């Protein structure tokens, strides 16, 4: 038995996951081949809104290798409606959401028919022979237009395009004052309307699903973030007894919220497999993925910030329009609501009002995308703070310091009704300033302005916090979410002292196997390499709520700690029995129970072997050290940080180049700094991509123009800078490890830092906003327009 001298938590352990990924020994869903397996191809609507008046599959059925074809009408009786688990208001309007369209299509890309064939090529060949008659209906695309009176309707049966309106008011909630009064009495008012463009999650592994209906349990392999939720939802949607379904998420190639879904393709595959009695596989192409997997963001944000001339903010009013797309998917309506609690950021705003109107359009549904609601809110408040600073000719960091919660004021009850447990915005900001050379860059900025350099320098600030670690179940209940926010873990002590850890979190690149091994190694005092982490299969891991919302460590990791504590508690009386001492005389450190004040000790592995033999256990003690724990957090975790971006803007071409990017994040204690670093880098990349590159663009017929990686500008290595990252450590007080979530922080913080930098460079020309992404054309056009077209 090895006692680990150095704590595992905090070590930059190389990942256990990597060896098989770098050698190509992978288990992607699309790799699976099962006996008798058939291949599916899906016919998708080329039009955004139409009545289906006829589907002729005769020619397609005669194609070589084609086994069957199903239309929406064929599956109508059994497909039910795809689930929406977040009815945000009691009167929320939700249209039925078939997996395979029955009589209307409501977005271009919606599934209309499915071909089953011997091979994937043959299945795709047959798609071209299916003849669908569409009777086109008025197309609703513009978000503001859709919400206006008299608009054409996406779902005429609902009588409106408005799904729900959700409001929070600090005066009503008793968390603050009346924002209207603050606006009336304001010495300075800043009003802006920002557009959160529609984004595509664009995980690298296209979605894939395999279903085997040939055993007592129907088994589904899916490239999903949520095997547990998927199993439950399949059971509830399709009325299959839950114990007759097993879901496996094998290796999953990224998700970013995009695989937090119960998809039409999963339902279709299951229904077809059940009909045929044979395994089936469906793997989407990238083009299909861009077209039909859910999108993210897509809001219009109207903001009114009231302040005094000394820079003290007195109130913030937020009026949102949020594009749902054509249907409500798993958590579509709740995404903007997750932002409702974050528009006040790190600040002591005394009054706050939030209204969100959720609107249907003829586009693919929106849903979770990395940050989910919080990037939108953080962007808005951080942009507004920079605008206010400019209005008052104050340094943007100084303005923030006049409004932020100071480190002595924690825990702090916010105007949006949350309690921030901890934080130190001063320390993170001071460190970021230093790393960035803030004062030096400000001097250079002045020089460039004075000499009217064609390349101007802008400095963007984002001092963010976010709520993550979803979530206290009671809070979710109060928000009408359909499930809790706990997580489950189990630990199995094997007779040889090796350990199996079962987690309900479901990784898809985050490195749970490594991080959980570190946690267990410390808790049980066993070697890192003696721990195996199992996940992603409802048979091995029967309980869980999966991975999203930066929840895995702060909820799932803590469940692991709790399970380990139970293992030790079970082992203690046995160890006492083995050494013929009282339990109270034992201390457990470094994997050994020691009789206090003596050298007498037994290792946890010795106890595990004794339990296995069970020859001599105390009376009434079961021969088993295995333990389970389900952990429900009391509060969210609130990572925060200060991000500073220096951007060079070529005023003649509109080209933006990020010259330096510094972020100092405070995520409390760190289990594995290597993994944290990677999460921050990747998060930054996605936030920067929203600021500068990515946008889902539709033409006037509702066709997605940015439907491949040739048009959707997901950044490559040449489009991104190297980042300078630092950390401060203010431990979370709500969990025993003092950890906070880190999966989304970079994405949440970086978008406003970059856009603020761009505007800081061009504000001198009279530019006060540039719609994202800040492409060369948009930046050039903004400068040109502000200067009266004379430049």
């Amino acid at each position, binding site marked *: 038995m090895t006692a680990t001298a150095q704590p595992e938590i*905090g070590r*930059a352990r*190389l*990942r256990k*996951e*990597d*060896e098989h*990924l*770098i*050698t*190509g*020994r*992978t288990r*992607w869903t*699309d*790799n699976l081949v099962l006996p008798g397996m058939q291949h599916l191809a899906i016919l998708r609507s080329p039009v955004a809104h139409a009545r289906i008046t006829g589907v002729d599959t005769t020619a397609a059925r005669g194609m070589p290798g084609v086994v069957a074809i199903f239309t929406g009408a064929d599956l109508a009786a059994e497909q039910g409606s795809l689930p929406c688990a977040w009815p945000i208001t009691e009167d929320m309007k939700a249209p039925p959401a078939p997996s395979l369209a029955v009589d209307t299509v409501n977005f271009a890309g919606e599934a209309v028919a499915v071909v089953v064939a011997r091979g994937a*090529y043959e299945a795709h060949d047959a798609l071209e022979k299916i003849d669908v008659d569409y009777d086109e209906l008025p197309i609703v695309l513009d978000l503001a237009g859709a919400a206006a009176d008299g608009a054409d309707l996406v779902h005429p049966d609902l009588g409106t395009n408005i799904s729900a309106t959700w409001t929070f008011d600090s005066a009503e909630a008793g968390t603050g004052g009346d924002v209207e009064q603050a606006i009336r009495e304001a010495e300075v008012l800043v009003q802006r309307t920002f557009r959160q463009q529609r984004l595509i999650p664009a*995980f*690298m*592994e*296209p979605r894939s699903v395999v279903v085997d209906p040939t055993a007592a349990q129907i088994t589904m392999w899916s490239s999903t973030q949520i095997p547990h939720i998927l199993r439950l939802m399949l059971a509830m949607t399709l009325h299959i007894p839950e114990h007759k379904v097993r879901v496996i998420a094998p*290796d*999953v*190639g*990224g998700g*970013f919220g995009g695989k937090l879904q119960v998809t039409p393709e999963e339902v279709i595959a299951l229904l077809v497999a059940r009909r045929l009695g044979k395994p089936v596989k469906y793997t989407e*192409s*990238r*083009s299909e993925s861009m077209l039909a997997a859910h999108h993210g963001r897509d809001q219009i944000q109207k903001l009114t910030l009231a302040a005094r001339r000394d820079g003290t903010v007195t109130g913030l009013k937020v009026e949102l329009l949020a594009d749902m797309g054509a249907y409500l998917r798993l958590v579509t309506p709740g995404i903007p609501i997750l932002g409702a609690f974050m528009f006040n950021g790190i600040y002591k705003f005394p009054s706050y009002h939030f209204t969100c109107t959720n609107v249907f359009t003829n586009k693919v549904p929106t849903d979770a995308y990395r940050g989910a609601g919080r990037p939108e809110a953080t962007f808005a408040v951080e942009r507004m703070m920079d605008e206010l600073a400019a209005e008052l000719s104050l340094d943007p960091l100084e303005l923030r310091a006049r409004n932020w919660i100071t480190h002595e004021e924690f825990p702090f009850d916010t105007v949006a009704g949350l309690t921030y447990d901890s934080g130190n915005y001063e*320390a*993170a900001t001071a460190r970021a300033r230093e790393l960035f050379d803030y004062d030096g860059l400000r001097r250079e900025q002045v020089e460039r302005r004075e000499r009217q350099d064609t390349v101007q320098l802008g400095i963007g600030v984002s001092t963010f916090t976010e709520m993550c670690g979803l979530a206290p179940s009671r809070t979710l209940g109060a928000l009408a979410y359909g499930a809790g926010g706990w997580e489950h873990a189990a630990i199995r002590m094997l007779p040889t002292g090796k350990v199996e850890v079962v987690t309900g979190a479901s990784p*898809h*690149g*985050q490195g749970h196997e490594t991080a959980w091994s570190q946690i267990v190694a410390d808790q049980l005092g066993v070697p890192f390499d003696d721990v195996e982490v199992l996940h992603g299969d409802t048979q091995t891991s029967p309980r869980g709520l999966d991975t999203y919302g930066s929840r895995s460590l702060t909820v799932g990791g803590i469940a692991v700690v709790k399970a380990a504590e139970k293992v030790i508690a079970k082992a203690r009386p046995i160890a006492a029995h083995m050494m013929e001492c009282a339990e109270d005389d034992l201390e457990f450190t470094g994997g050994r129970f020691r009789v206090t004040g003596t050298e007498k000790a037994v290792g946890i592995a010795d106890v595990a072997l004794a339990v296995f033999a069970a020859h001599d256990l105390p009376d009434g003690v079961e021969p088993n050290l295995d333990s389970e724990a389900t952990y429900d957090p009391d509060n969210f975790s609130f990572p925060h940080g200060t991000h500073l971006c220096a951007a060079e803007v070529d005023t003649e071409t509109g080209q933006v180049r990020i010259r330096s990017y510094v972020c100092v994040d405070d995520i409390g204690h*760190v289990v594995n*700094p*290597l*993994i944290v*670093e*990677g999460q921050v*880098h*990747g998060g*930054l*990349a*996605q936030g920067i991509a929203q600021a500068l590159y990515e946008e889902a663009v539709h033409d006037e017929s509702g066709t997605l123009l940015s439907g*491949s*990686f040739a048009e959707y500008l*997901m950044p*490559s*290595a*040449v489009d*991104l800078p*190297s*980042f*300078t*990252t*630092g*950390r*401060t*450590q203010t431990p979370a007080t709500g969990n025993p490890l003092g950890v906070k979530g880190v999966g989304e922080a970079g994405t949440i913080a970086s978008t406003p830092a970059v856009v603020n930098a761009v505007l800081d460079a061009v504000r001198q020309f009279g530019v006060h906003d540039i719609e994202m992404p800040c492409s060369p054309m948009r930046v050039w056009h903004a400068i040109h327009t502000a200067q009266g077209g004379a430049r």
Partner: protein
Amino acid sequence: MRITVTVDGTTYTDEVEPRLLLVHYLRDRLGKVGTVVGCDTSNCGACTVHLNGHSVKSCSVLAVQADGGDVLTVEGLSRDGKLHPIQEAFRDNHALQCGFCTPGMIMQTLDLLAEEPDPDDETVRHGLEGNLCRCTGYQNIVRAVQDAAQRLRGGATSSGDAVIKDAAKAETAGGVR
């Protein structure tokens, strides 16, 4: 059509449809599922393999074009149970998260380093421009490629160690990389 292709050292002869893509031949006919498909426009590079010593996107090559050729995939890189230095460098620099782009990145790196054994940051970034990653933000991939370059040139130290030391430093007092 009948083709004969050597893949990772083994020679195969097969009847294939003329339209069959090389990547599908590798995955579906030979079981070389370490090579993956990430897009359908040859933008993402996840399917990158070597054909006759140069990197190609195997989604943009027909299997029949590989007739008589020699294909190397990520599965053929490690020898005698020993990882290739590029594979080691990717692991040691935490240059992968979900790992889906990794086979393509590694195979493209092999090509890049054959042409430029000591690339600077910009050279690496341009050399990998045709390979997309959604997880890492590329910074650790760039480091991994430079680390691999050093290993292949016979340098003794690896920046993988530096990453770990730096990350540990950042842990304590708002350190920086």
